[in-house]
């Protein structure tokens, strides 16, 4: 791009792009090829297993229904947080994010404990958990956009004679539309590829593409069917992801972009009642499942330190493995994602961005399954290697790192680097003195999120974790799969531990960010 850049700098550029590319090639593209080979070259040919049509249909409609319900539940909260200034607003913003960083297994366990007998598994449980999980997406994206819509445009419409409904329909809604569609697309994507929630809450006969891949590969050992379903899932996700990224790009260029301080005002009169009601109901909805989860865990904490037939280790040791794996995964994700972000930030936003985010949508289960069949023979027989777990988790976490770091790097004025150069700073010095301190906060946030994501990662980990080194989500899943209140209680206790560590890491990261820059 810049012909003024000396050759040394170009070598560095190549390295920043080549290392992440090589990592993705070995640990993402190669397993994908293994799936492709398995699915397309078997004796029976690449035909879809019976019932695939129904599977695909259920996958789509549960995601669509979850999206609609999430929008309905999230919009009032987005309105309250996006329009008004009140005491505890930043706390509310942070708390809304909590469900999103909760591992899916924790959310599923909580709803299992919360819902009355007879309803704790099935479509309603799935929808409720998806809404709980994704309210953060809607509130953050739509609320954030709402807070930047200049009230002057609605005021202008009012002066021109438009009543409240007309103003909402013709002024506010069109400016909000890009954010709404972006939030809907992301929610749909997350629900479409949802695994832990559906595996645990789905009950008998409720399967999506994602859970069916797991079912075929891990329970029925029908690797060929799993491979074909993976390919179908990949194609479907690619379509959803393409639509989502187009909608998201539009959200970036949305509306009039006023300063939040101008937009936010104190609620008055009836608004006050409405805001308080919305906040109270939301708080109840967000807190209740977790409270029930904690309640269910009471009395079973002692069992964490006893041997159990469910695991090869004592339950508390799963927490140690989880933290250790997630730490390594966060470091890998930070290194690989950070380098990819450096390479990406040098070019204008575009197609390459979407490519890096592919693993985000491309189904963790498929990744785990790919690892299973790709790394099973020498010289690539890694099945017994402990590091396969953090590598798999880092692939799921790295796209989050890229998403957080790239905008921070892009927002650094290139003149700062140039001025540093004219003051005698070599490119390496300029990077250390300018880029690193200015993007440092983003790196810290990314590290926290990468850790939280890796910690809760379930779909890929369940394939590659060794029985004697289970992570918390895997251990919780094992306990949930066994009968008896005692096992359910231990699962709840482990879920509380997992939730505590994940939320702690995410809140620490959010604190470092200090409210600067949206994390979604």
């Amino acid at each position, binding site marked *: 791009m810049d012909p003024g850049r000396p050759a040394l700098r170009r070598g560095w550029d190549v390295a920043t792009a080549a290392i992440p590319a090589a990592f993705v090639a070995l640990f993402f593209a190669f397993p994908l090829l293994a799936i492709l080979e398995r699915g397309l070259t078997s004796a029976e040919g690449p035909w879809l297993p019976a019932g695939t049509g129904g599977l695909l249909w259920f996958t789509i409609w549960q995601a669509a229904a979850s999206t609609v319900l999430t929008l309905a539940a999230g919009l009032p909260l987005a309105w309250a947080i996006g329009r008004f200034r009140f005491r505890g607003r930043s706390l509310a913003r942070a708390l809304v994010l909590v469900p999103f960083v909760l591992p899916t297994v924790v959310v599923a366990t909580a709803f299992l404990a919360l819902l009355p007998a007879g309803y704790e598994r099935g479509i309603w449980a799935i929808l409720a958990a998806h809404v709980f999980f994704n309210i953060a997406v809607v509130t953050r994206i739509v609320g954030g956009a709402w807070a930047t819509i200049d009230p002057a445009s609605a005021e202008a419409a009012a002066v021109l004679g438009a009543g409240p409904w007309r103003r909402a329909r013709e002024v506010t809604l069109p400016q909000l539309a890009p954010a709404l569609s972006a939030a809907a697309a992301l929610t749909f994507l997350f629900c479409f590829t949802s695994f832990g929630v559906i595996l645990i809450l789905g009950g008998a006969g409720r399967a999506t593409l994602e859970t069916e891949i797991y079912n075929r590969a891990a329970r029925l050992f029908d690797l060929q069917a799993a491979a074909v379903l993976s390919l179908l899932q990949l194609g479907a996700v690619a379509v959803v992801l393409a639509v989502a990224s187009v909608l998201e790009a539009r959200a970036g260029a949305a509306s009039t972009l006023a300063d939040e301080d101008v937009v936010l005002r104190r609620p008055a009169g009836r608004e006050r009642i409405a805001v308080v009601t919305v906040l109270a109901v939301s708080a109840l909805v967000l807190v209740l499942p977790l409270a029930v989860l904690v309640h269910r865990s009471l009395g079973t904490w002692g069992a964490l330190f006893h041997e159990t037939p469910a695991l090869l280790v004592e339950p508390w040791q799963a927490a140690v493995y989880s933290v250790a794996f997630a730490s390594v995964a966060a470091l890998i994700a930070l290194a690989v994602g950070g380098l990819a972000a450096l390479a990406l930030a040098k070019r204008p936003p575009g197609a390459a961005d979407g490519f890096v985010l592919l693993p985000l949508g491309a189904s963790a289960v498929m990744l785990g399954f790919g690892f299973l069949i790709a790394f099973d023979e020498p010289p690539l027989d890694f099945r017994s290697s402990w590091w396969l777990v953090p590598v798999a988790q880092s692939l799921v976490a790295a796209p989050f790192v890229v998403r957080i770091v790239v905008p921070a790097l892009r927002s650094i004025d290139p003149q700062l680097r140039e001025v*540093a150069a004219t003051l005698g700073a070599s490119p390496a010095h*300029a990077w250390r003195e300018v880029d690193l301190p200015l993007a440092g906060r983003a790196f810290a946030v990314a590290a926290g999120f990468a850790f939280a994501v890796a910690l809760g990662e379930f779909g890929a980990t369940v394939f590659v974790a060794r029985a004697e080194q289970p992570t918390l989500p895997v251990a919780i899943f094992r306990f949930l799969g066994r009968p008896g209140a005692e096992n359910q209680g231990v699962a709840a206790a482990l879920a509380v531990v997992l939730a505590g560590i994940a939320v702690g890491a995410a809140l620490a990261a959010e604190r470092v960010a200090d409210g600067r820059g949206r994390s979604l």
Partner: protein
Amino acid sequence: MLSVRDARVVLGGHEALAGVDLEVERGTIVAVLGPSGSGKSTLLRAIAGLQRLDRGSVTLGDRPLAGVPPHRRGIGLMFQDDALFPHRDVAANVSFGLRMQHVARTAAAARVAELLDLVGLDGREHRTVGSLSGGERKRVALARALAPAPRVLLLDEPLGALDRPLHDRLVVELRELFDEIRQTAVYVTHDVAEAFAIGTRVAVLREGSIVQVATPERLWAAPGDAWVARFIGLANIDERGGTAFVTRPEGVVFRPDPRGDAVVSSSQRDGPVVTLRARYDDGREIVSAHTGLAPPAPGARVLVEIDAAAVTEVPAAAAAVAPLPSADAAID
């Protein structure tokens, strides 16, 4: 001291610099004056090493700078929007270049104090960058650029975005400061008054080529061609074939007279000078710079008196520069 020879830069298929020659003597300031899109910033970036030359050379002293990266050139640069490091305080901004040269801490602190004193910000070492006013930011940016004692200082429209009184004050301060420390500098601007006030000499840049280099006095007295004359604000240009007659407005006097051959059309005071415009009965227009009180009012019939010494004969606007279809403001 600094010498640019035949510098050529092509950006996006467009010739941003079309063979520029420029000499800057030690201790002098060359103001590079040109409209936006004329290649001024590209020229500065090429000298600083931030933009590679497609042809030609830059030499500092007797050292050719081809292949020397920006951080080893010993050339300072000050941007229009300051580019202060937002994460460092005033002292850390100013001492940045000293740190890159591994200057000892105490020596650096002394140098920072000396420079802040020089730019009129003494004692403000520990202010945060965010708390500075526009003028203070300029001063910090200047102190930072001067701290490592660059052999040449480049300034890219440094006073561009300031309000007028602050702008005018800083122009004078800058020139005095540069004269005091005998700083060699290249100062890029599109503002004629600024170029005349700052530059020991003024180089006029047009579509990637330097069309004239002269002292401000010489430039005013003898613009190289009609285009230069028009660009530096000379209005009375009468083009006849290949030549143009330029009449400087200070040599034109409008004398109220009912038998005159022109009528005043507008009167506009800017400080001590009133710019008067009048229209001859045959339709031609003429501009006069009036310095007294009570200039003739619009509508008054006047006799136009022209001092013969104020008329200069120059070549008509040369089409010497190849016409470029996309020569708009996209480059600057």
